């Protein structure tokens, strides 16, 4: 069962091949057996999952099942889940049992899906390797000495290892697409505002967006159908109709205009990754697409702009963790300032502190204009690059990451880690959607092809990705780990 896509499992549940309870038990058993080596879950909610599965089976027996009823999923531990620990990968929230559900969680539950648990992640979604988790690093099922990527590393690793058919992630600067690429799965970051952020623990509010991570683009389409849409609780969610993303998956690609940003194929790009991406582009040409080079001239300013804007927002968003109403509180605070400074010093990890300090500094008096205002202006230029490019082409393609997954512990210097996100970060600044699809291997580790579209072009991205997956089978490859350890 674990090698099947959500689409295949849904069909099997529908035909009665197996029950949701059997399916859920199967995956819970695999988690039990294999996750000790992978560390992809922070919390497994086995009992609750089995109950939900039984309810799903009853719903099906009563003839009330929807497309995804009974499908087991996992949630990045950044989604608030009522009655279940929601840690955000931090010691700060190690004791936080969320008292309410995120809108995405509500929607998935209403669609009849089953949550197996909460997946590991970089603390407060700050990281590109999942090494910043209070709950320990996650390993890449393709090579246990490699990182799974981050910050949605637990979700990516769990799906790749066949511990769960699909999972939810969030993406602030590449946190869905890069781990999807590193783990050889498909991950979609929707347009900013397409999916409600309510109940998703905020990192950088103007950049955060939730999306599906699964084996195939088709699976992502099914899941996006469930989670997309306006939410009255999120002012930044967009009141715009949600199409059926599965309906257009099979539209032919003849005449599709693909742009290859020249800045995405420059220095620092691993030659094997480049080859895999260029081979993938050739597949598209064979499907009738035309390819041209385009330019996104401000690409190299995306990381500098991001490391002003995201930490600035984060420094403010993370002020609520003060040891008063929830979360970690230091022992025996001497006074108020001691309560604050010690609770926060103990509760936050190094990378989170770095970003809070950077954000605090760049927002402070005398620096605000030079950093924050400047970065916001550059942000507009970066968005304009994309809007200009989409005047000429339908989609952009390039690598999701300059290298395949690197080794655990390989990147000690924060800046070298940040530079990993060179191809993903601008997308969040511009708010456009992007998807990473498996496109081969480099040094035995998966390579992700990133496809970008203009705002609200999710249907097109899924169509373009799906057609590639009809023509190739990279997305169906499973790591040996998936068979050996479970």
């Amino acid at each position, binding site marked *: 069962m674990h090698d099947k896509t959500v689409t295949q499992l849904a069909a099997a549940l529908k035909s009665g091949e197996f029950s949701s309870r059997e399916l859920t038990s199967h995956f819970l058993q695999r988690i039990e057996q294999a996750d000790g080596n992978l560390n992809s879950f922070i919390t497994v909610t086995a009992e609750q999952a089995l109950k939900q599965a039984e309810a799903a089976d009853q719903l099906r027996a009563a003839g009330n099942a929807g497309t995804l009823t009974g499908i087991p999923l996992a949630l990045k531990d950044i989604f608030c889940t009522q009655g279940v620990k929601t840690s955000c990968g931090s010691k700060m929230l190690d004791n936080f049992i969320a008292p309410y559900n995120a809108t995405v969680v509500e929607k998935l539950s209403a669609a009849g899906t089953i949550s197996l648990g909460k997946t590991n992640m970089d603390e407060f979604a700050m990281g590109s390797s999942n090494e910043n988790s209070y709950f320990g690093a996650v390993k890449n099922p393709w090579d246990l000495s490699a990182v799974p990527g981050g910050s949605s590393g637990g979700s990516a690793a769990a799906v790749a290892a066949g511990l769960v058919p699909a999972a939810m992630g969030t993406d602030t600067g590449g946190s869905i697409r890069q781990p999807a690429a590193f783990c050889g799965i498909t991950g979609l970051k929707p347009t900013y505002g397409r999916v409600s952020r309510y109940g998703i623990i905020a990192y950088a509010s103007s950049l955060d967006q939730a999306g599906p991570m699964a084996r195939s683009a088709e699976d992502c389409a099914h899941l996006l159908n469930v989670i997309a849409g306006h939410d009255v609780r999120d002012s930044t969610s967009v009141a715009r109709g949600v199409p059926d993303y599965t309906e257009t998956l099979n539209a032919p690609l003849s005449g599709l205009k693909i742009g290859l940003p020249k800045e995405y194929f420059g220095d620092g790009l691993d030659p094997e990754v480049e080859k895999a991406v260029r081979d993938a582009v050739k597949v598209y040409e064979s499907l009738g697409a035309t390819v041209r080079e385009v330019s996104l001239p401000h690409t190299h300013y995306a990381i500098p702009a991001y490391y*002003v804007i995201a930490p600035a927002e984060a420094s403010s968003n993370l002020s609520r963790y003060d040891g008063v109403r929830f979360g970690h509180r230091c022992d025996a605070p001497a*006074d*108020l300032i001691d309560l604050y400074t010690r609770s926060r010093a103990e509760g936050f990890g190094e990378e989170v502190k*770095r970003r809070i*300090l950077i954000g605090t500094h760049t927002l402070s008096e005398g620096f605000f204009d030079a950093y924050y205002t400047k970065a916001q202006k550059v*942000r507009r230029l970066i968005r304009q690059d994309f809007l200009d490019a989409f005047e000429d082409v339908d989609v952009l393609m390039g690598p999701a990451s300059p290298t395949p997954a690197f080794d655990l512990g390989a990147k000690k210097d924060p800046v070298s880690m*940040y530079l990993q996100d060179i191809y993903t970060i601008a997308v969040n600044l*511009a708010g456009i959607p992007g998807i990473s699809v498996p496109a081969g291997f480099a040094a035995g580790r998966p390579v992700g092809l990133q496809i970008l579209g203009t705002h609200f072009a999710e249907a097109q991205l899924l169509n373009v990705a799906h057609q590639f997956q009809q023509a190739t089978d990279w997305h169906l490859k499973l790591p040996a780990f998936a068979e050996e350890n479970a």
Partner: protein
Amino acid sequence: MALEDSHVRRAAHLARIAVSDDQASSFVDDLSRILDMVDQLQSIDTEGVIPLSHPLDATQRLRADEVTETNQRDNFQRCAPAVEEGLYLVPRVVE
């Protein structure tokens, strides 16, 4: 713009994060490198460019003035470190 120890200490104070002397000097190193990278922004001409706060040019939607929330104090205070008589407790605040 060079980052000094005093900047880090001031940021740590504003952000209410206790930082030891050793940590402070390591933060100065890390943050300096990050800000050096960030300083590339200064080389772009942004004359006349309007800052962009939100990726979409959307405007605020307004909510009807209705009471939709009910008392959930017990639920919300279950995750609180210290409460008494329905109040959150903190070390004495001197005005």
